[in-house]
């Protein structure tokens, strides 16, 4: 962790508390070499025949007051990563440190005090609220489970939380089915905030919502960060959402972080080809600008199976710059520019890490040719 990196001040969080904390660069969560392999068992004796390498060795840290966005295609291990750092899943290897304390293999009982500081917002507001419980019961569950009695009583505190997230406090007695998706997500946020956590992990907090509601919820998260000095890890596949909320962004591909950078650096000058491809896929809502910039990169094929990931760089099967070294050697996650770490042999917008290796792989040559063709045709128009 270099000093230059810590300079990045959260851009959208105007609250002094959050800003100061971000500038301090105090590390709240530190993840090293984190792995989660789900065993595949077969046969009568349940012998392990393989493993789904959902998360396969990732390192990052989250500083106080900042928002780390995690993006990637479906099945790249984003959600598994979120469940590992909240310890809903037991990591296979690596360590998770929260406030300097190793929580990787703590038991349920020993984790309990930590649960107060790390909360989660879930993806599907229709399944994250128990349909048989009232909103009051749902939002007050953290108090009951942690044995905390807030000042002024549980009911009053729940009603305060409901008004904080923009719901009518009188809805205390209602049931989840009486609310819309956006309102339900607010209830989920109120529950996550109940114990005044330090870190909130949001697993695709808006992807199940209408686009019009997404903005409301995203802005609510922003405002809450400002008011309460929260630290977020926001997992999403919507790049515009991530861009809006994040200070730093981690791009994941097949269980690995391929690029980890400050938001502006990442969007301005993505280094990893995968990041570039992802960014090029963001739709541009302005038809005038669309004509100017039309270098959409279409990646061919699906994400390879995490059961047997490709050798070397995991992206080499779909990359248009892949060379021999990409197939044989796994690129390390290196800081090629202050505040921008990339795992690539031939990064964009930076000097080549393996300049001696110029021979493109066959698939890459095809991909590159098609890329050239498609950009030609689009520029013709």
């Amino acid at each position, binding site marked *: 962790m270099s000093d230059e990196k810590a300079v990045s001040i959260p851009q959208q969080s105007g609250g002094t508390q959050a800003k100061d904390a971000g500038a301090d660069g105090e590390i709240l969560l530190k993840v090293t070499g984190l792995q989660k392999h789900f065993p595949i068992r077969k046969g009568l004796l349940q012998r392990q025949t393989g493993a789904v390498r959902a998360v396969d060795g990732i390192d990052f840290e989250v500083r106080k007051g900042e928002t780390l966005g995690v993006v990637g295609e479906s099945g790249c291990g984003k959600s598994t990563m979120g*469940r590992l750092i*909240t310890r*809903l899943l037991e990591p296979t290897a690596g360590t998770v440190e929260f406030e300097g304390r190793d929580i990787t293999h703590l038991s*349920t009982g020993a*984790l*309990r005090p930590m*649960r*107060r500081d*790390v*909360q*989660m917002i*879930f*993806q*599907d507001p229709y*399944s*994250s*609220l*128990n*349909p*048989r*419980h*009232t*909103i009051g019961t749902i939002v007050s*569950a*953290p108090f009951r*489970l*942690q044995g905390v009695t807030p000042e002024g009583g549980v009911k*009053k505190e729940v*009603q*305060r939380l409901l*008004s904080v997230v923009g719901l*009518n*406090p*009188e*809805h*205390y*007695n*209602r*049931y989840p*089915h*009486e609310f819309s998706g956006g309102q339900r997500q607010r209830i*989920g946020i109120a*529950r996550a905030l109940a*114990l005044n956590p330090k870190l909130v992990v949001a697993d695709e907090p808006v992807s199940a919502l209408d686009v019009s509601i997404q903005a409301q919820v995203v802005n609510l998260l922003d405002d809450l960060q400002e008011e309460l000095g929260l630290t977020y890890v926001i997992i999403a596949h919507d790049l515009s959402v991530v861009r809006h909320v994040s200070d730093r962004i981690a791009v994941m591909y097949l269980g690995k972080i391929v690029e980890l950078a400050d938001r502006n650096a990442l969007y301005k000058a993505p280094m990893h080809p995968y990041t570039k491809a992802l960014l090029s896929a963001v739709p541009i809502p302005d038809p005038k600008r669309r004509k100017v910039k039309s270098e959409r990169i279409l990646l061919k094929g699906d994400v390879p199976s995490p059961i047997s990931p490709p050798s070397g760089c995991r992206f080499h099967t779909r990359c248009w710059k892949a060379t021999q070294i990409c197939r044989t050697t796994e690129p390390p996650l290196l800081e090629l520019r202050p505040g921008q770490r990339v795992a690539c042999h031939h990064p964009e917008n930076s000097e080549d890490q393996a300049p001696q290796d110029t021979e493109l792989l066959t698939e890459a040559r095809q991909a590159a040719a098609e890329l050239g063709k498609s950009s030609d045709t689009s520029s013709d128009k």
Partner: protein
Amino acid sequence: MTAPIETTGAEAGAQPEAVLAGVKKSQIEGRSLTQIAWMRFKRDKVAMAGGVVVVLLVLMAVLSKPIQWVFGLDPNKFNQDLIDPALLAPKGGWGGMSWEHPLGVDPQYGRDMLARIIDGSWVSLLVAGGATMLSVLIGTVMGLLAGYYGGWVDSIISRMMDTFLAFPLLLFAISISASVQDGFFGLDGLPLRICVLIFVIGFFSWPYIGRIVRAQTMSLREREFIEAARSMGARGPYVVFRELLPNLVAPIIVYSTLIIPTNILFEASLSFLGVGIAPPQASWGGMLSNAVDLYTADPQYMFVPGLAIFITVLAFNLLGDGLRDALDPRSK
């Protein structure tokens, strides 16, 4: 699910303090899923009819002794004067129906049929209800354990269910009931027979509900609210009893009302086979059993208890179907 919500009172944008002050007076009332189910159930006339009959039957069973006392009915009083000694059948048509004996009298002894039906009702419902409760209790616990913990717990419990389902239940029930002698558990006579029946029927029918609860638990376990509870530090028992069980109440209630009639029939079959309730206690199955020998002389004797069983089973089934529709509208 779109239930109308009555919203009157404070507006949404009010200040929290102001709103808090008005909380007690507010008219906003959330409708729980139970209330919505009840509204839906009330609209279902057939199910309501079944429900009313079930309530009447339960009342009749619970109050059977007071009813007999009030109306001066005695299920065990012999009226030999009403029996034709040659045929052993009641004198007169329709099983000896008269104002004094509205459902007639039984052959051989001339006991009042109405009194015997009423007196038999509590036995039938007690055995069926007790057996259902026992099987629901065992089935729910086993199903929850198997579904929530999975792995080897699930394997053991599931194999146990398979074993129980593979038992030739009727033969087993007959042999157990026949081999239990007076003095077991310090009980004898009627209480012993009732306990044995409840145990046999309940203990061997739990896998049916166990499987349903297991399947439901397995699907609920993957929902995010379970993860949410765990992320707040909830332990297994909390998750099972506070988060899962409330969601299982509906299927359990529905299934219970649907196996009560099966258990009534099962008790009747055991009594019919002579291993259930022993005479002189009146029981519907026992009456049917006696009637088989005498049906040529007195067909009415078979008809009355048969009708009682039929009405009871039908009422419970209609109630159960209605409850299922009301509690889980998607299952249609």
